[in-house]
C-alpha cells in the first residue's frame, strides 16, 4: 500500500515536471496551453495526495478550468487583426516620448501562433547566446540544488499552527479549519485579496473597450448543453459555498464555479443587457469587498476590533461575507474572461 502510494507520488511528481517543461518549451503556443491545462489537472491530483482538498477544489476550478479558458480566449484574440488599434487614435501620442508609435496599418500581420520559431533566447548572436544559455542553466541548477538542500534540511517535525487553529476553531464560527483561517483568523488577507481581484478588473477595463465580438449562433447542441450545465454549475456553486463551513469548499471555490457558469453563458453568445452593465454590474462587482468592509466597520463601531466577530454571530457573518464574495468573485472572473468593459447603454 505505502509502496504503491510512493509509486503514485513519484509518477505524479515526474509527470508534473515533465508537463511543465513541455508546456513551456513547446513551439506551438496552443499545444503549450493544452499541456498547461493538463498540468493544472495533475496539480489538483497532487493537492489531493497532499491532503489539501480545499486547494484541489480551487485548482480544479481555477487552475485547470478558468485559467485555461482565459488563456485560450487570449490566444484566439492574439490573431484577431480586427481588434488592433481599438479605443484611441494613435494620431497624437499622449506622452512626448511615444513619438514612434507604430501605426496600425504598418503592423506586420503575422499570425500569433505560427510556429514561433524555436524558443527564442534573449541574445541574438549565436555564440553569446549559447554561452548565455549555458551560464543560465548552470546557475539555475545551482539555485535548484541549493533550494532543494534547504528544503531537505528542514526539521521533520513541522512547527506549524495546527494546534492554535484547532484550539480556536470553536470560537471561529465554522468547523472547516481552512475556512476558519481564510475568513476569520486571517480574514484581513482575504479582504485585501478581494481588492486584488477587483483591481485586476479595474486594470483590464482601463485598457479600453474592445469592439463587441460577433459570436456565431450557438447551435442547438451548445444551446442545450449550456441550458443543462449552467443550472448545475450554479447549484454546485451554492453547494460549495454552503458546505465550506464544515467541509472543503468555500467562497473562492464557489465563486470560480459560478464564474464558469458565466463563462459558458458568454460563450453561447449571451451578453449582459446594456441596461444592467452600468450601475447594477458595478454594484455586484464590489459587493464582496463592500460587504466585507461594511461588516468590518460595523463591528468596529460596536466596539470590537477589525474583523473581530462576536462568536455567537461569527457563523452568520462569515456566511454573509462568503455569499457576497462568491457572487463578486464569480462575476468578476467572468468579466475578466470577457476581457474588457461591456459597453454601457446610452450614456447616463
Amino acid at each position, binding site marked *: 500500500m505505502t509502496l504503491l*502510494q*510512493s509509486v503514485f*507520488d513519484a509518477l505524479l511528481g515526474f509527470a508534473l*515536471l515533465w508537463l*511543465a*517543461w513541455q*508546456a*513551456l518549451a513547446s513551439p506551438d*503556443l496552443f499545444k*503549450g496551453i493544452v499541456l*498547461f491545462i493538463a498540468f493544472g489537472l495533475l*496539480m489538483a491530483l*497532487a*493537492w489531493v495526495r*497532499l491532503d489539501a482538498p480545499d486547494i484541489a477544489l*480551487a485548482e480544479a476550478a*481555477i*487552475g485547470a478550468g*478558468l*485559467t485555461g479558458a*482565459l*488563456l485560450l480566449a*487570449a*490566444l484566439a*484574440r*492574439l490573431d484577431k487583426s480586427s*481588434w488592433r*488599434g*481599438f479605443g484611441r487614435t494613435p494620431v497624437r501620442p499622449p506622452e512626448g516620448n511615444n513619438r514612434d508609435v*507604430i501605426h496600425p496599418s*504598418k*503592423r506586420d500581420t503575422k499570425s*500569433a501562433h505560427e510556429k*514561433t520559431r524555436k*524558443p*527564442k533566447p534573449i541574445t541574438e548572436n549565436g555564440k553569446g547566446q549559447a554561452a548565455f*544559455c549555458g551560464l543560465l542553466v548552470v546557475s539555475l541548477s545551482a539555485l*535548484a540544488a541549493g*533550494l*532543494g538542500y534547504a*528544503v531537505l534540511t*528542514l526539521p*521533520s517535525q*513541522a512547527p506549524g*499552527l*495546527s494546534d492554535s487553529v484547532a484550539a480556536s476553531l470553536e470560537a471561529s464560527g465554522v468547523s472547516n479549519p*481552512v475556512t476558519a*483561517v*481564510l475568513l476569520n483568523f*486571517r480574514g484581513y488577507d482575504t479582504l485585501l*485579496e478581494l481588492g486584488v*481581484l477587483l483591481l*485586476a478588473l479595474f*486594470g*483590464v477595463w482601463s*485598457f479600453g473597450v474592445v469592439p463587441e465580438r460577433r459570436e456565431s449562433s450557438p447551435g442547438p447542441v451548445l444551446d442545450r448543453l449550456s441550458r443543462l450545465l449552467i443550472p448545475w454549475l450554479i447549484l454546485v456553486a451554492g453547494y460549495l459555498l454552503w458546505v465550506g463551513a464544515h467541509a472543503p469548499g468555500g467562497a*473562492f471555490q464557489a465563486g470560480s464555479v459560478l464564474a464558469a457558469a458565466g463563462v459558458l453563458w458568454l460563450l453561447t453568445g449571451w451578453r449582459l443587457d446594456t441596461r444592467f452593465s452600468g450601475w447594477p454590474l458595478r454594484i455586484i462587482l464590489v459587493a464582496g469587498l463592500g460587504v466585507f468592509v461594511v461588516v468590518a466597520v460595523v463591528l468596529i463601531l460596536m466596539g470590537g476590533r477589525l474583523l473581530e466577530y462576536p462568536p455567537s454571530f461569527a457563523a452568520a457573518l462569515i456566511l454573509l461575507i462568503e455569499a457576497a464574495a462568491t457572487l463578486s468573485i464569480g462575476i468578476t*472572473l467572468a468579466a*475578466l474572461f470577457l*476581457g474588457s468593459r461591456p459597453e454601457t447603454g446610452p450614456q447616463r
Partner: protein
Amino acid sequence: MNPAFLYALVGVGLFTLGLYALIVHAHLLRKILAINVMASGVFLVLVALATRTQGAAPDPVPHAMVITGIVVAVSATALALALMLRVRAETGRAELAEEPLE
C-alpha cells in the same frame, strides 16, 4: 522518502523550470505561462512541507495562504493577458523589445 519532501522538491523544480522559461522565451504568452508554473511550484512547497509531520493532520494555515495565492495568481494572469493583447495591438508583436543595452 516522505512524500512531503518529494512534492516540495517537485515544487522547487517547477520554480526553477518556470524561471528558466521566463528568462529564455520571448513570447509574452509563454512568459505568462512560466510565471504560473513558478507560482504552482511555490504553492507546492508551501503546502507539501505542511504535511511533513508523519501521522498528524496537515496544517491548515498554508492551505489558506495557497488559496489566497491562487486567486491572486489568476487575477494577475487575467491582467497580464489583457496587457499582452494591448502590447500586441500597439506594437504588432506579442513580445517585448530588447532592452537597449547601454
